């Protein structure tokens, strides 16, 4: 379906407009279209998936960590895994750190799975479209302006979903946001990379502990420059290919009275260059010091650097560390999270804090509704939470749960002519449960 405006018009019109096609946005578009809304999904890159296809290759958050793996995310997320399974492109893998079983996939196939699910649901897609501006009137977003190869284009919508990760839409619309790193710490950036021709059996002869010891020793000897000493590598569905999560790049800085984070064009430019430099240094370390890597070779960097947190909206409710660690349940919860608080902070290690075994914190719908703007939901890592709570709930499975909730809610709002704050939660809950979402622990 063509979506770009013909020469006679300078705008296009949809019920639900989803900005950003990561795990949250793509799922939101699928949910909104399945719920009957005329839906548009806009994406800045040439493929769907955001971090799920550009940076990572493992869905975490489907299962609780601990002795027994309880599955806490369902619905559209299950369709995604099933779609990957049809290509033989995924596998379940216990997490190196104990964040619960992960689903590792071939991210190239995932690009196609996202496309298929979005198109089968009936949503329109516009790639290479980057949000530049939000026009607001009487507290409502009227339209978004996106940059394209043929200049700017106006997209009119009834309800909007900000799944940009960086809360771009909310920021442009003037919704209140918090900036990671400004008052609380912010998580670091990571350039991932994949390596082929690894002798996996040999690699497995080295335990996680020994792997980290060798990394630390190599760094301390001065022979290698390795800022993070607890980076990890993992097997993938492709024989002999390992994927890594090792590099650590500063995500914010304060200098000369100016605060910059990973939405700052200069910082982001430097970070991309530094991330790839680090990745090559880690590769040099792997080849020299880790059994199985001697004959290996780099096959791909992440398409872009991985960003863990930048802007978050101030929502109707802000999820806190206390909520996470006490496994708080909310009347309006639209998803569950059992993942520990995983803090990739400054310094060489990563901090982990767990929920009570087998328990989950609820993700309240109110944390997806930004203050001040009437017809806007957020989904994904720009939802409303403190730095710590965010460090637990930002996993991709939770982003999919948020996306399904936001997409379904947005479509219901359009159909019933209600603002997000006025939507009868029972309607949304029933629709989500019917669609296989998991809203409460057993």
């Amino acid at each position, binding site marked *: 379906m063509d979506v770009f405006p013909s020469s006679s018009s300078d705008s296009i019109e949809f019920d639900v407009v989803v900005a950003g096609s990561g795990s949250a946005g793509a799922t939101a578009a699928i949910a909104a279209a399945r719920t009957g809304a005329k839906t548009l999904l806009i994406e800045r890159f040439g493929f769907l998936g955001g971090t799920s296809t550009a940076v990572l290759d493992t869905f975490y958050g489907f299962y609780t960590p601990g002795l*027994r*793996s*309880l599955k806490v995310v369902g619905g559209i997320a299950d369709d995604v895994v099933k779609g990957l399974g049809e290509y033989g492109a995924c596998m379940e893998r216990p997490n190196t750190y104990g964040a619960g079983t992960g689903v590792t996939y071939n991210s190239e196939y995932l690009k196609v799975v996202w496309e298929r699910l979005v198109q089968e649901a009936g949503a329109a897609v516009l790639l290479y479209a980057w949000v530049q501006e939000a026009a607001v009137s009487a507290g409502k977003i009227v339209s978004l302006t996106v940059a394209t190869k043929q200049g700017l284009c106006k997209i009119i919508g009834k309800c909007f979903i900000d799944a940009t990760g960086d809360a771009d839409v909310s920021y442009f619309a003037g919704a209140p946001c918090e900036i990671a790193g400004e008052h609380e710490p912010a998580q670091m950036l990571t350039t991932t990379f994949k390596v082929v021709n690894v002798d996996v059996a040999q690699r497995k002869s080295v335990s996680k502990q020994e792997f980290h010891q060798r990394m630390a020793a190599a760094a301390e000897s001065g022979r290698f420059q390795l800022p993070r000493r607890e980076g990890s590598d993992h097997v993938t569905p492709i024989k002999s290919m390992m994927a890594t999560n090792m590099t650590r790049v500063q995500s914010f800085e304060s200098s000369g009275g100016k605060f910059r984070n990973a939405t700052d064009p200069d910082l982001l430019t430097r970070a991309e260059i530094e991330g790839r430099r680090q990745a090559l240094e880690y590769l040099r370390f792997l080849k020299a010091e880790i059994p199985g890597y001697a004959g290996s070779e780099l096959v791909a960097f992440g398409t872009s650097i991985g960003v863990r947190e930048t802007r978050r909206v101030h929502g109707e409710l802000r999820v806190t560390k206390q909520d996470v660690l006490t496994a708080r349940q909310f009347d309006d919860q639209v998803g569950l999270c059992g993942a520990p608080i995983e803090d990739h902070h400054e310094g060489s290690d990563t901090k982990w804090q767990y929920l009570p075994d087998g328990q989950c914190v609820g993700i309240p719908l109110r944390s997806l509704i930004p203050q001040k703007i009437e017809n806007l939901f957020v989904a994904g890592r720009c939802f409303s939470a403190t730095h710590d709570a965010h460090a637990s709930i930002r996993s991709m499975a939770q982003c999919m749960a948020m996306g399904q909730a936001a997409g379904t809610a947005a479509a219901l709002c359009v159909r019933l002519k209600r603002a997000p704050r006025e939507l009868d939660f029972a309607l949304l809950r*029933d629709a989500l*449960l019917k669609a*296989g979402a998991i809203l*409460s622990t057993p």
Partner: protein
Amino acid sequence: MPFLRTVLGDIDATQAGICYAHEHLIIDPSFTTYLYPDFLLDSVERACVDVADFYAAGGRTLVDSMPCGGGRNVVKLAEISRRTGANIVCPTGLHLTKYYAPGHWGERITVDELATLFVADIEQGIDAADYNGPEISRTAHKAGVIKVATGQKNPRAHERKVIEAAAIAHHQTGAPILTHTEQGAGALEQLQLFRELGVPLAHVVISHTDRAPDPAYHREILSTGVLLEYDSAFRWPAGDGNPTLDLVVAMVKAGFGSQIVLGMDAARRKYWKGYDGKPGLAFLLREFVPRLKEAALTSADIEKIFVSNPASCYSFTAPKN
């Protein structure tokens, strides 16, 4: 304080002791026994032979699984309980349509009417005539679990109606739910329905799934937090290994040891010593437990399966309304 509702009254969940999770102690003359004469288990005396042996082997609580109108007789269950000292939980609910004569009231009744009958069984006492009409004569013996059933992978409309009524009765009373699956199929479909209906899966027990002993299927079901009941331990042909045993061990190893319960489901005379059959009700405690130990299950694992898991899943939750 969590409690189980037995035919002789509520007991503290910590007092339930060793429990069998899916039994048939009495099946009175009914359409069920007309179809399957070997299902006729109508003698209190004969039942007591096996229940006394179960008690002597350490057993304390039995969850019967014959719901409304299928040959249930709560007066006889209460008598067995008095004579042997074993606690007995009696269900309300409805079985598969095939166990009722064509035209049975269960097919015509509305969801709300059905839920009202279930709730009355749980809160007031089970009808001495087992809802076979024309008059209802409530005994002092209350139902302690709601039994529902599906006959294939996808629930039929009638089966969905019964499950919906069970969910309403659960929300009103807090009673746990026990389900029948046909040859283990349809467990995922059942629990999706319970999720939609807001029933906490830690109080739902899905039965007979060891008849489909695929570990991946069982892990997928258990990852939802629901309980599984296995009862074919004594049914597998001798000499070919025991898939139920293998499954228990595999699921405990996979971390799901707190979600497995065991039963006999000995619905035929030929399984009862009291009816001159074998292996008898005490089989699990006398013969299967030693095999679980040989398979390297710890005493703590076995205690969970027989004591703490049933005590937890069969206890009542706080009613919603």
